[in-house]
């Protein structure tokens, strides 16, 4: 038994800031100071506050250390782990209140409004230990389903809970399972699939669940298999997620060793096994029909629906396909009941949703909130506001398939239907915050560039339509657009939406549509005034030196790579627009704010 547990985040965010090194030095130091029989070091999944990594929590005191460096380790071990003296300078600043008392983590702005269901084990258990998962009620739901409930009971409880697909579409999960169970009564084989091909730029929700709690997915897929009558499951996961893939492989192997996958699970006739399929990173393979085509070993291209997967899916057999976060909710719903789940959220969107917070926000990271939380709460309370005192402009949800939410809708409760109504969508949960320095036309162009690149090319509206959209946006941002171009965008968007084969094409114009809806004035400024109000589109900018502010220090001259600035000490500085490459180096160098772009 260990008297103290040190939990070190092993999620991707903290990994990138060096948690693996911190952890190995920590283990060595604990051993060196002879504490290795008393203190246990546990690698966990994501705590959520990725911006402050590497993160470490020491139990039983629950002290939260942020930005821990290798050089801090000896002090933590000798002071805190041995003598119980907390190293205050490393504590997460939010947990220190003004009177020097240490607050509980759950009272900090970042965690206070969160409600962790899908992420409940992330940052709490060691994802590579099936025993720890079992200690946290793991596999109990599967046991309950197999020994006490009929498949119909299982489907009913999921239906009653109101759980909807967390991958973006929001289709009721219970109905999907029910269809897969009943639609083809004489099917000789059925399949359960998991979509872990999280491709939206800036999204890492599913990745974190897989890295922090892979057994939850294994358990939930087995439950789905029991409910619909399938004995084989596939997890389709991006090869770019090496940590997630590795931990899932370990989880599947451990479950097999314990007999929780395989034949006669819990002494019943039920058998179920899982296989991992690695995706090569094509965005379109997150679309369900393309995903299944790819699992079959063919080129990942979508097919028309109907038939839906519940009728004809993988290898033509009835198939249930859900996303990772959807599955992560299942065991909890089975154990705690449909009413418990339905008590969270809004009328039509039950439960919680995980968001990956990114962009212009202080607390970059992973958050899970009840449906119906407002964007304002997410940005200003949980997210800690926008850096450098800048103003909020919009937030993009749903990645390249979604749209932006402007300031005027910041108080709207976030759920599936409200977001659709204001022209965005829930999407898988990427939430990118933009401030006054972001040009909305440029944002639309960024997402279109992504979809042009990722269009699989099977259908013309998507293949050529997105390309034409992108070209028009390029024309506008380079200052050559006309009002006719802006009008053309509307029609082209509608055409692509109506005629594309799959979800990728049907939703690809959304970023353009929603920026046109809320920020048309920016488009017009680019076209009529040839100006970029946010100062992003370089073709429309000129850099100037404000003579009254200039101290004639020549700092800008020295930093200019194009030798576009002339002048000397105590002499007037000027920028030659013909030579200026608009690299912004001088603006960043000038301490007096004397260089402006307009």
């Amino acid at each position, binding site marked *: *038994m260990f*008297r103290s547990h040190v*939990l070190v985040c092993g999620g991707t965010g903290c990994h990138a800031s060096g948690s693996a090194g911190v952890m190995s030095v920590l283990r060595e130091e604990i051993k060196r100071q002879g504490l290795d029989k008393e203190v246990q070091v546990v690698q966990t999944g994501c705590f959520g506050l990725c911006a402050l990594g590497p993160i470490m929590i020491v139990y*039983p005191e629950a002290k939260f250390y942020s930005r821990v460096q290798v050089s801090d380790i000896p002090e933590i071990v000798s002071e805190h782990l041995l003598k119980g003296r907390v190293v205050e300078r490393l504590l997460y600043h939010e947990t220190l209140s003004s009177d020097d008392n240490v607050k509980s983590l759950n009272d900090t702005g970042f965690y206070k409004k969160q409600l962790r269901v899908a992420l409940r084990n992330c940052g709490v*258990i060691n994802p590579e230990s099936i025993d720890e998962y*079992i200690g946290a009620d793991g*596999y109990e739901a599967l046991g309950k389903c197999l020994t006490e409930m009929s498949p119909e009971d299982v489907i009913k409880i999921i239906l009653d809970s109101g759980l909807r697909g967390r991958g973006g579409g929001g289709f009721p999960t219970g109905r999907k399972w029910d269809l897969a169970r009943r639609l083809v009564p004489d099917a000789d084989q059925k399949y359960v699939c998991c979509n872990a091909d999280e491709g939206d730029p800036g999204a890492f929700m599913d990745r974190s669940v897989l890295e922090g709690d892979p057994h939850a997915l294994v358990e939930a897929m087995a439950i789905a298999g029991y409910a619909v009558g399938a004995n084989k499951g596939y997890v389709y996961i991006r090869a770019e997620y090496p940590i997630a893939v590795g931990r899932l492989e370990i989880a599947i192997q451990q479950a097999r060793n*314990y007999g929780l996958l395989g034949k006669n699970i819990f002494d019943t006739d039920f058998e179920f096994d899982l296989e991992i399929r690695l995706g090569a990173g094509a965005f379109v393979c997150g679309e369900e029909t393309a995903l299944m085509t790819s699992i079959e070993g063919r080129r990942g291209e979508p097919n028309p629906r109907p038939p839906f997967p519940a009728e004809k899916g993988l290898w033509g057999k009835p198939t249930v396909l859900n996303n990772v976060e959807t599955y992560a909710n299942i065991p909890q719903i089975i154990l705690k009941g449909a009413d418990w789940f339905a008590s969270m959220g809004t009328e039509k969107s039950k439960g919680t949703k995980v968001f990956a917070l990114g962009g212009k926000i202080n607390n970059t990271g992973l958050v899970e909130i009840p449906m119906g939380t407002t964007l304002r709460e997410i940005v200003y309370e949980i997210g800690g506001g926008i850096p450098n005192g800048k103003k909020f402009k919009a937030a993009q949800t749903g990645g390249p398939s979604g749209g932006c939410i402007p300031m005027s809708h910041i108080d709207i409760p976030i759920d599936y239907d409200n977001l659709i109504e204001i022209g965005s969508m829930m999407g898988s949960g990427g939430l990118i915050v933009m401030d006054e320095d972001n040009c909305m036309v440029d944002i639309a162009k960024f997402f279109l560039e992504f979809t042009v690149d990722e269009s699989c090319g099977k259908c013309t509206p998507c293949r050529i339509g997105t390309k034409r959209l992108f070209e028009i946006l390029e024309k506008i941002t380079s200052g050559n657009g006309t009002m006719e171009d802006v009008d053309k965008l509307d029609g082209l968007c509608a055409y692509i939406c109506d005629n594309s084969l799959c979800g990728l094409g049907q939703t690809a114009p959304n970023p353009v549509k929603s920026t046109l809806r809320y920020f048309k004035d920016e488009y017009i400024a680019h076209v009529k005034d040839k100006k970029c109000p946010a100062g992003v589109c370089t073709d429309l900018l000129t850099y100037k030196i404000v003579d009254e502010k200039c101290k004639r220090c020549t700092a800008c001259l020295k930093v200019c790579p194009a030798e576009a600035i002339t002048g000397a000490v105590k002499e007037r500085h000027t920028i030659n627009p013909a030579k200026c490459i608009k690299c912004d180096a001088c603006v960043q160098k000038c301490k007096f704010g004397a260089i402006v772009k307009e």
Partner: protein
Amino acid sequence: MKSLAELKAIKEKMQGQVGIRNNDQAETRVVVGMATCGIAAGARPVLQTLSTLVQEKNIPGVIVTQTGCIGLCQYEPIVEVYDPEGEKVTYINMDEEKAKEIVDKHLVRGAVVTEYTVGNI
């Protein structure tokens, strides 16, 4: 593993061990003086014993942690038990055997072991 009973056995074994990470409902705090004086007098095995027993017996709402010098160095190892109201009982000259008694009598049954308390000097 084939049966629910086996699953339950693992769960119970692990819950004690993972329970240390849930200090939400901690009501009773057991604090061991772990300054130089305490460590020199043998506080480490006392702390280890207390922590292990609390986890093994899965006693709810109890956390075992360290603190610095309490100021009574000659009576170390010292263990203080704070109840939910913040009232404390101070045990002195502790060792592993006495620690076991504290767990059984005080933490499990709620009976203060008066003969080891500081008032008994």
